[in-house]
């Protein structure tokens, strides 16, 4: 489904990502882990078109999508959520998700019909699925952090993605919130047959749901495999798991 080949990126001579390759099979749940500064978010930005790689290739659904604009990738079926919560803060919860529906279904260039009632059933169903229906009319910027993350997931799902890229979906959450939101993500991915690729710092989360794990260290892949393989890898134990404890 997603094939990353030898992708590289430097900032002012500092190599943030140096020749990273991995594959995400359709329907799988894959995770990218690594210490802070390992290049996880940069790698995400390279895949999703926010940054253009210095070299290498990103292939999505057998199509070379290296460096194409985010709004085009989005139309091809790649959905992404962000590490720092990324919503439309002065719009209501309802308007946030509805805007995504309007745009994704190509109604954004309509200048003359009232937007208010457009895609109401779809929006409400999706808000129900992410557990935000009672808060539909609240201004999204005033929601709790956990709720904002749920909303972000809702916005992303409105784009009917085939693959979902989640950058630290549980960053800043309490242990309970983390467990709940991981269960939510897992359920939604299963219901909709989504492919998931996520970065995460919480090892318990990663090893409990991921089918495949790619370990990044200083911009390079040091291990790639099933959770059991990665857990047993001596290099990983040395640079990452060992250091973390």
């Amino acid at each position, binding site marked *: 489904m997603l094939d990353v080949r030898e992708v590289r990126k430097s900032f002012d001579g500092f190599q943030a990502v140096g020749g990273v390759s991995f594959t995400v099979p359709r329907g799988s749940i894959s995770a990218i882990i690594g210490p802070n500064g390992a290049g996880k978010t940069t790698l995400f930005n390279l895949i*999703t078109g*926010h940054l253009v790689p210095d070299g290498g290739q990103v292939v999505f659904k057998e199509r070379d999508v290296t460096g194409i*604009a*985010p*709004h085009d990738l*989005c*139309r091809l079926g790649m*959905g*992404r959520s*962000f590490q720092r919560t*990324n*919503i*439309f*803060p*002065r*719009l*209501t919860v309802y*308007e946030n998700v*509805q*805007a*995504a529906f*309007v*745009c*994704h279904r190509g*109604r*954004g*260039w*309509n*200048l*003359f*019909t*009232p*937007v*208010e009632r*457009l895609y109401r059933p779809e929006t409400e169903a999706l808000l129900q699925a992410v557990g935000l229906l009672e808060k539909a009319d609240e201004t999204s910027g005033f929601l709790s952090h956990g709720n904002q993350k749920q909303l972000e997931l809702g*916005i992303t799902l*409105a*784009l009917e993605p085939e693959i979902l890229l989640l950058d630290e979906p549980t960053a800043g959450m309490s242990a309970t919130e983390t467990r709940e939101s991981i269960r939510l993500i897992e359920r939604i991915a299963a219901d909709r047959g989504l492919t998931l690729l996520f970065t995460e710092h919480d090892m318990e989360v990663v090893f409990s749901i991921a089918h495949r794990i790619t370990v990044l260290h200083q911009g390079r892949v040091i291990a790639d495999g099933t959770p059991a393989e990665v857990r047993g890898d001596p290099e990983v134990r040395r640079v990452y798991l060992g250091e973390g404890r």
Partner: protein
Amino acid sequence: MVSAVGGAGRRVPWALLVLVAAFFVPAAGSRFYTFLANDVVIWALFATSLNLLVGYTGLVSFGHAAYFGIGAYTTGILMKKAGVTFLLAFPAAGVVAALFALVFGFFCVRLTKIYFAMLTLAFAQIVWAICFKWNEVTGGEQGMPEIPYPDFGWLERIGTVLPVVAGYRTSEHFYFLTLVLVAVCFWILRRIVASPFGRMLTTIRENPERAEFIGVNVRRYELAVFVLAGAFAGLAGGLFGIFNRGVFADFAYWTKSSEVLIMTLLGGMGAFYGPALGALVLLWLNQQIVSVTEYWPLILGSILVILLFVFPGGLAGALGALRDRLVRRPSGA
């Protein structure tokens, strides 16, 4: 905030009431008040067109007067030099301004924030300089005086049958015409901001990075709204040239751009009618205070400072907060 104001508008048709009241200004007030009302109506359209950019899309233009000036010259030149009827010369102002906005906007939307603002200003100053120097076409420094009024002969003919419309001066006829045209423009603008397109603009204002990743082609939307805002500013300029009985290069000067920006901020860019309210208050205050003291800019500056600190949402924001307080109290008790 935007939707809250819109919600109130549906319960009481304020816009319609104001429009009807405005038709009685010539009959009720003096000639001076008709003049002032005409000025306000045109500037209200100009400021509201700017608010498409500033309030709805989050693009601060420092050069919006360029399109106002281009519209004024278009209508002026067509009517005075080519003898074209107002029926064509007026829409032409919008079309020509839109074309210029398309060209300038193409470059401007490639920049963000202060760089965007500076480039809009640069283009506006180019427009001003050309208007100021190109004597053969624009009249240069002297400007282009004596733009004719549209032909109101038909109104006088109706007046012989329908005495209600009789007995007004040409300037008052023009005021009525302005009211109708601006009301139509406001109706269109209102539809646009409440449309799916309008919603996409607010997502760009709120978070352009995220907007890209719900599939919004941010630059293309920004260019589209830049052209729309330019078109309506051009229409306002077309009316203003006739109202002012002449078109001058300073219509496109940066002071005009800042004036319209101040109106938008003063009135409140969070509400659809905020900039119109700003135009009313600023022009009325200007007339009142100028007749009392020469320190008008000082007083205006003080008012602005107070407003920005006390009511960040502008006058419309303050009125909205007041209404919320009045409405909530009885229902809460």
